[in-house]
């Protein structure tokens, strides 16, 4: 019960923090909504408002060419009062979503899947933060990135919810729910579909661990793939009923996410590159970038077959760097999952450098953006350099954790060499 008390206190504190920020700084949500670091063209709350306005007036929300988010968000938000005149309900709603995410995160942490799975159990199991909710509140609920995302009301949090619930269902052995949640996340933004294979493996490991009488991986995967597809198809069907024209909304949402026509600056790497690229090579490099994003899935899954949850975490990190419209909410999701691997931290080598790079980018990013856009004394390269630093920091962190995980596995395989120096060959 003590645990529950603490959890309640943490959750209450997180909610109170958000409400306090809203009360103290009433203009903060609108400020954050306008920040490029928080809102991307595919998650912006402003664009959602525009789509909502059109939707409530029975005009196709995609007519304006501004709104590119999934249609199912519209009826959901039309239930809430107007965010402009009554900001409180929306913020409360978003805070609740955050709490739900935190709850899912706590479930994942409590399952202990991060330290011991079906094939593998980490050596330094004891070095971990107690999974109840510490991870959630140190790294998620009170993380400034998460708070900013929450107050900026980016719709990316729904994708986060879908992903986290998929994970938490998978680690608790509820593979059907995992597939449904992943389907929901993929429906909102395409890229979570890439998590399908490691997630299925995670579900399969859970089932095999419990049931002992396991069917083949292939048939299991096919079954779940069918569930996943049916879920997405169902959501698309409902959306079609809602919008009426299937092709309009597909091209306005998924087409937009895949072809990246809007090159508004964000913290990612795509926008600058596609501003500069020759037009005749645009399609080719779109393909290259998407393939680059997708190519890691197979390699990581094969290499870290014994730790599917770690594969999922690392893939989220990769998405936070390389997806077309990343924002700090993607980074905050990765940061939320990282503390599950507290036992890897002693094996990491460049923690200081990675954290400094991230802090540097976090502090200088808004300043350089201001210099470029408002003061006019800088140019696009200022901001792009900062996004490069940000991506560099994330990449170092990612590479370092993967190295630590591999190291951990190696020590596990070679107990006699534990604690010895390794050289990368």
């Amino acid at each position: 019960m003590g645990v529950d008390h603490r959890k309640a206190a943490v959750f209450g504190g997180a909610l109170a923090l958000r409400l306090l920020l809203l009360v103290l700084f009433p203009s903060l949500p609108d400020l954050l909504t306008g920040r490029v670091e928080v809102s991307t063209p595919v998650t912006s709350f402003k664009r959602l408002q525009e789509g909502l306005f059109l939707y409530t007036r029975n005009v196709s929300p995609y007519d304006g060419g501004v709104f590119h988010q999934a249609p199912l968000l519209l009826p959901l938000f039309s239930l809430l009062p107007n965010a402009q005149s009554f900001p409180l309900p929306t913020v409360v709603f978003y805070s609740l979503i955050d709490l739900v995410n935190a709850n899912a995160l706590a479930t994942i942490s409590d399952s202990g899947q991060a330290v011991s799975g079906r094939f593998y159990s980490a050596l330094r199991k004891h070095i971990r933060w107690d999974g109840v909710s510490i991870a959630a509140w140190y790294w998620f609920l009170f993380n400034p990135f998460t708070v900013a995302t929450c107050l900026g009301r980016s719709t990316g949090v729904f994708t986060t919810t879908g992903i986290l619930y998929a994970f938490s269902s998978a680690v608790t052995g509820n593979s059907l729910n995992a597939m449904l949640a992943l389907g929901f996340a993929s429906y909102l933004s395409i890229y979570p579909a890439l998590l399908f294979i490691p997630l299925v493996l995670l579900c399969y490991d859970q089932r095999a661990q419990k049931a002992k009488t396991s069917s083949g991986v292939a048939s299991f995967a096919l079954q779940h793939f069918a569930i996943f597809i049916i879920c997405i198809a169902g959501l698309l069907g409902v959306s079609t009923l809602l919008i009426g024209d299937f092709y309009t909304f597909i091209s306005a949402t998924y087409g937009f996410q895949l072809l990246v026509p809007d090159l508004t600056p964000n913290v990612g790497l795509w926008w600058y590159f596609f501003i500069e690229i020759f037009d005749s090579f645009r399609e080719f490099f779109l393909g290259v970038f998407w393939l680059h994003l997708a190519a890691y899935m197979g390699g990581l899954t094969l290499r870290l077959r014994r730790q599917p949850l770690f594969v999922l975490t690392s893939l989220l990190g990769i998405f936070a760097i390389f997806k077309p419209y990343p924002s700090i909410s993607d980074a905050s999701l990765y940061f939320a999952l990282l503390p599950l691997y507290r036992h890897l931290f002693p094996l990491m080598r460049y923690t200081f450098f990675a954290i400094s790079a991230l802090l540097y980018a976090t502090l200088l990013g808004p300043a350089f953006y201001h210099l470029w856009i408002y003061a006019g004394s800088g140019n696009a390269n200022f901001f792009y350099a900062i996004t490069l630093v940000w991506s560099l920091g994330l990449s170092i962190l990612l590479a370092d954790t993967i190295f630590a995980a591999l190291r951990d596995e190696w020590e596990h395989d070679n107990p006699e060499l534990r604690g010895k120096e390794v050289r990368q060959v």
Partner: protein
Amino acid sequence: MAIRDIVANPSLLPVLGLSAETRDQCMKLLATLDPTADLSTDPHDRALAASREQKQLFALLARLRGQNRDAIVRVRETKQSTAEARQEIDRLHLQLQNLYYEQRHLTGEIAACESYDHKYRALPLIPLEEFLALHPEHQESDEHELMIARINHEHAEREKLEQARQELLKRKQALIAENNKRKEDLASLDKDLERFIDQWYCIVSREMFLVVRSPWGTANWRGLFCSPPWLPHLHLHPSLLQLHLHFTNPISLKHALVMTAKNDDQTSLQTVSPDHAMTATPRLPPPEAPEAIRTRFKVIAAFWAVIVFLGFPIWWKTTSIYRARLPIPDMIDWADGKTCRPVFPLEIRVETPSLPEIEAQHLLRSTQHTLDDLNEFSAHHLRLKLSNENPDQSPADDAADTALTVRLVPQVDLTTPQAALHPDTTQLDVFYPPSQIPPPSASNSPLSTFIAAELQLLFAEEKAIIAQVLSENNIPSAPISPDLAESVTRRLRRSMKYADTYHLAFSLFTPGTAPSSWDIQGAVHDYITPVLRAFSPISNFTVDTQVQLYAGFSPTAPAPEYDGTHSAWTLKKDDLSAFINAAEWPLSPSIGSGPTINFILYVPAPSQSPLVVKDSLATSWIIPQWGGVFLLNPTPTDASEPLHHLTKDTLGPAFMTFSHQLLTLLGAPSTPSPLPLRLQTLTRIRAATLLLSASSTMGSLARLTESLPSIPIPATVATSVSTTLSHLTSACTHLRHGQFQAALASARVAEVEAERSFFEKSMVGQMYFPDEHKVAVYLPLLGPVGVPLIVGLVKEVKKWVASRRERRWK
């Protein structure tokens, strides 16, 4: 100086004496002959004495000659003997020289031999005294033998030393081998020691582990022995270790813990069995498990699968240049004129209302013969056709392509045939005396000759123009007379380039305020619109008008001069080109897509009126390929007050001129005069021009396509090309059948499509993107990504090849 002093040779002295004697004799003779000497003596005596003296002189001279000859002979002999003596001397001198050289050579050889540096001198021999002490038997021997003995002695000594060296080397090898063996033993001992320490660590508590932080087990050992920590292997002699431990044991408390551990090792070290120590190997990372190798292979394969199955198709799909297939050979054939040779069979209808059928037929045939004989240009020929008697059977479309109708009208009061063209139709009336109807038997007649000549004359200019057009496109055509060719070229140069749409701009310019309005609508409607309607099958037209007040001449243009004889202001013919004030007059070069034809109506100021061109007194001229100018001088009656509005009647002559200028600018021939005939001619010319121009555009496109393999060819270009080719074909067919209107329509479509396909925008973009730039596009991103992937692949492939080879060897 007397000659006796010089000549001392005794053999010459008689000669000298004799010559002196002869001279005396000569003197004597001269004295005898001297007229002044003695006049008293008898001249006869004197002559006698002279002859006597003369005889004596001759005798002396004969002797002198003999002696002279003797002297010369003697000189020759002397010279001969001198030469012989000299030869002898030379020979001797040469021998002497040879001897001298021989001597020098021998001296040199001797010196070289003496200074030759032999090896034995450099030998570090033992000193002579020492040698003599060793070998006293050589005390007596001479230097040479002594040296030989010494050298032999040295040789023997050295051989002895060499032998000793070899033995030492062998011993050294043996020692090294032994050393190595010892080293290996040591290494195995070291290994055992390490293993022991590791196990010991496992036993010792966690705190101990934290103290011994460094991951290598031996690191502490190394630290103790102060050797650099990067040395991979350090071999310690057990006894040395023992010794050192004794020293270091009391050093510090921190090390003490470790030391105790090592002392324990020490004890266990002594118990390690020797065979175990031998089997241990130097330290290496543990071999990779086959499972790990398989995993790595799978990882690399996964990345490459994405690249090969998704990356390459995307690359292929997105960067390949779409090149629609073009019928290149057909296009080139068109451009070379192989597909279509334009022919112009002109159909001429002959109406013979008053002639019986047979006679008319005969007349026709004979005229045709004559025509064919006259014609040199096979592509352009006239075909006579007897008109149908009943006019309702000739439909309109048939009539449209009839070039000319010849109407034969008998007229009794004529002696020779006469021809008259109708001014507004395509009819030629030929009046002939009925007597000239050729009898069926006659092969030729004046009438048929006349008709043929008349027709030939009518179409002479057209023929010339077409010949010119064809020859410009390298199609063989009939030769035309030079002056005709020149006039044709001049006309062609003057006329506008063909366009689908022309913009006509009528402008009224005046330097003052008046006139400020004109009845342009009526004037255009009356004078221009009929022409434009007639031209509508050839081109489209738009009409713009403007009025510009205060339009002065440009300051550089020469001002008009007043000519008293004609009481008019005159412009010089050479200055007409500067008449248009292009800088200030708003004459836009082009409105929309087509070219603009400008017509300028200039009303001079009353103070400079009337304004004419000098000499010719003309008031209008054509500016080639640009437009026409007309100077409108108000009639003298209303010259006093300025003219504010130009009525249609005032504009009449000007617009009449403009319509003529328009015809010229559009390229209509000057003859024959009736407008319908000129239009028909223009139709044929335009059809030919467009056909050839579209064909050559096709050829250019084909060549462009072939020479630039990197330009994309969109599907629209292929469609345009096929449309062009089909319309070219139909135009050619229509031409062959004499349907010139249809041919022109097809040729216009073909030209438009050909231009569109040639100037397609998307084809040009890629042209300025050379291949080197592609490297710059691909490398910065794909290079860093690709290198690890390729290296991984290469490593795997190498490993696979190696394993295969190994398996085969087995």
